[in-house]
């Protein structure tokens, strides 16, 4: 794929003047960078892009872009984004949030967004912790991770978002590491271009509450095999890997959701004959 920047827009054109509240070193800075680079690559004008989020450190991202944004309530980013895309299919819609937002409080929407297959890109900045509320375990946190809320760990099995996405019908599934700007950018571009619901999980370290995650940069590795179009194979591979292989893992060919709002409308008077007696 040609990663040359488009002539019309530079990555910086997609940044707003608002400075992030993120801690220095937070992985989300890198996600913001990759995201704006991907937009420049796609060349879509900022006003035709919408970035929808929930609540969390990661969910602060819309205001840092120069796109239309919606910073909604905790857990409801996906239906907010789906409603927008169905109503305005001309827009390029991103839903971007955290693992708590997307897999815990918003977990049900995740399943159904995958099933519904609305043509949008869902980017989860997975730091395996609730950053904004200062360090509680999320659905992707290891069972023995110690915290004030769950001393000694939750003892619960971490959630497997990529497998869930495959099982639920997502059309494109990828894992990236925030520190790998080049690969993340490329994958976001591909996710947008792929029809239907594209899910990109980005391992994005929380340096403040999970300083151990700084080691991720040494652990991640590019997926050894090519992406597949067989969800069962992709699932098996993801279930058995070490959680650190990155790249596009699955490309499906399911028909995207196609019941959109049109651009022009008929006179509602056509609905009235059914009532006349």
């Amino acid at each position: 794929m040609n990663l040359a920047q488009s002539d019309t827009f530079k990555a910086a054109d997609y940044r707003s003047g608002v400075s992030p509240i993120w801690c220095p070193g937070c992985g989300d800075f890198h996600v913001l960078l990759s995201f704006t680079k991907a937009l420049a690559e796609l060349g879509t004008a900022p006003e035709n892009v919408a970035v929808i989020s929930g609540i969390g450190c990661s969910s602060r991202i819309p205001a840092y872009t120069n796109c239309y944004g919606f910073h909604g309530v905790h857990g409801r980013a996906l239906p907010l984004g789906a409603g927008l895309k169905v109503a305005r299919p001309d827009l390029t819609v991103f839903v971007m949030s955290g693992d708590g937002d997307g897999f815990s409080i918003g977990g049900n929407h995740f399943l159904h967004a995958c099933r519904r297959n609305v043509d949008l890109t869902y980017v989860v900045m997975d730091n395996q912790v609730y950053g904004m509320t200062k360090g509680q375990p999320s659905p992707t946190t290891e069972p023995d991770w110690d915290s004030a809320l769950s001393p000694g760990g939750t003892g619960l099995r971490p959630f497997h978002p990529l497998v869930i996405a495959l099982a639920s019908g997502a059309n494109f599934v990828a894992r990236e590491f925030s520190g790998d700007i080049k690969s993340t950018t490329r994958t976001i571009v591909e996710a947008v271009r792929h029809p239907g619901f594209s899910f990109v999980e980005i391992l994005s370290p929380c340096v403040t509450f999970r300083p151990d995650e700084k080691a991720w940069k040494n652990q991640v590795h590019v997926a050894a095999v090519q992406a597949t179009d067989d969800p069962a194979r992709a699932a098996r591979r993801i279930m058995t890997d070490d959680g650190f292989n990155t790249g596009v893992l699955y490309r499906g060919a399911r028909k995207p959701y196609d019941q959109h709002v049109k651009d022009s409308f008929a006179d509602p008077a056509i609905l009235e004959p059914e009532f006349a007696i």
Partner: protein
Amino acid sequence: MMPNEAPHSTRRSISFAIVGSGGAGALTAGAILMEAAGKAGWYGIMNRSVGAQIRGGEAAALVRLSTRPVDCMTGSFDILIAIDWHNANRFAAEMPLAPDGLVIGDPANGDVPETIAGPGVSQAYIPFKELAGSLAGGRENMIAVGLFVGLMGLPIETVTSVIADKLSEKGEQAIETGCRCVQIGVQQAAQLGSSFTLETPATSQTGRWLITGNEAVGLGAVRGGIRFAAAYPITPATEVLEWLAPALTKVGGTLVQAEDELASISMAIGASFGGRPSITATSGPGLALMVESLGLAAASEIPIVVVNVMRGGPSTGIPTKSEQSDLNIAVYGCHGDAPRIVVAPLSVADCLFAAQWAVHLAEAMQVPTIVLSDQSLGQAQVVVDPPTQLAFIARRAVVETVEDEGYQRYALTGSSVSPMALPGTTGGQYTADGLSHTVKGIPSSNNLDHQSQLDKRHNKIAGFDYGNHWASIEDNGVAGADADFTILTWGSLTGAAREAMATLADEGIGVTLVAMRLIAPLLKDKLVAALEGAQRILILEQTHSGQFRQYLRANCDLPGEVQHFHRAGPQLIGPAEICTRIRNWRAS
């Protein structure tokens, strides 16, 4: 005989019920009679009552026909026909017979149960089963249709044409047999003789409509400009959504089935952020799930319409029956100060007006708007004059072009409504946010930003011109010293109040009605002006705790003496009870 009825052998209004176990076709019979009467020039209202069983349980059609528009059932029924008595007891409380009423059963099913046959009520026995059995494919419910036709004097040709229409898919033979059954019923009625003949309507060329409250809400919404709906089914609101699904597709919009109400309201907000007027419909349990996002719509100033068709609560409550007990959650439900509009339809026909007005208000003020309907309106079907076209159309203030860098999504304007940039508008990019924000939408915890944005959200609603649609203020034509009662109510009880006023007018008791359609914001000054000089105010509401009265009293002082008539559902407050309250008050 009811005092407001003509004192001769024909009646202005007749209420009747037809009951039967599942499959007996009681509801079909009611539907045929409603449509035929509507075609022939009468007005009508029909409620269906079904047992708790999902399918195949007992069912009753409760119908009232009249030469005048009707907004509610009467408290008692003139004629009851039971195809069988299976579980009919369960309905007994819902369909008390008038003292001069008539109940007809099949001798093969035994005597009329005591719970149903009250003192003075006439009883008659017609062998439905045997008569229907005399024709191949004959149906008891069609015999019952014929009985009603004969007793009330409906034109048989109209009934025949409705049957032909309704049974067209079943073929010639079924239509033929159906019509034969009706004729048999008519002959039987002739032998009974009747004191239940309906007054002849003024016209038989009506062009009227047959519509339910839930359908009327849907149509009003689409007329107002709604083009996106998100749906999660719930009794008794589902029909709003089921009507909208194909209707929106036909006009170029769409309905998405959501995974829950957290999603449905969020989808509506997302679609509206994109510039499409959006709606969702639910009942109490769903509204409870939606309140967090109502606050988001209020804070981010994204218009949406939420239809709440109330049922008995709390929790799962009584899903199939009406109550007005979601008033509090509709008006207050949310953390923080989150102003919203709450509009309540005053009749089945008014569901269209209320919904269309709600769309207009939501869009004009960029505010979440709740349409507070209820089961007794939503699931009732009426024959009405075709609704007129209303001027309420979604007109949102949007920015077409943005010249400079300085676009302020939440600018403080004279009307406190700020033009919205829709995605796609160059230079209008902003982030809608539930976080407290500056005029540009940038998150801020500054007290001045918070204060000024809260003021703005309050002022845009408080300063809006609602015209005279906030309430229906009516009198019953009795003037002078006797005109000293005022009924103060809202929503669906308006029909019962109107009926009571008409009855009391015949007794020379003057009553003024103030029926509130705009519940929030409460237009205190207008309400106080409407009540000025009122001496005895009867507050009417269908709640256990008196939510409406508390809401009124929290906001304004009511003049004169105040009495409060309130009761939880499912037994609706009816016109006769209202009359009794007022007569007793007068006598005291």
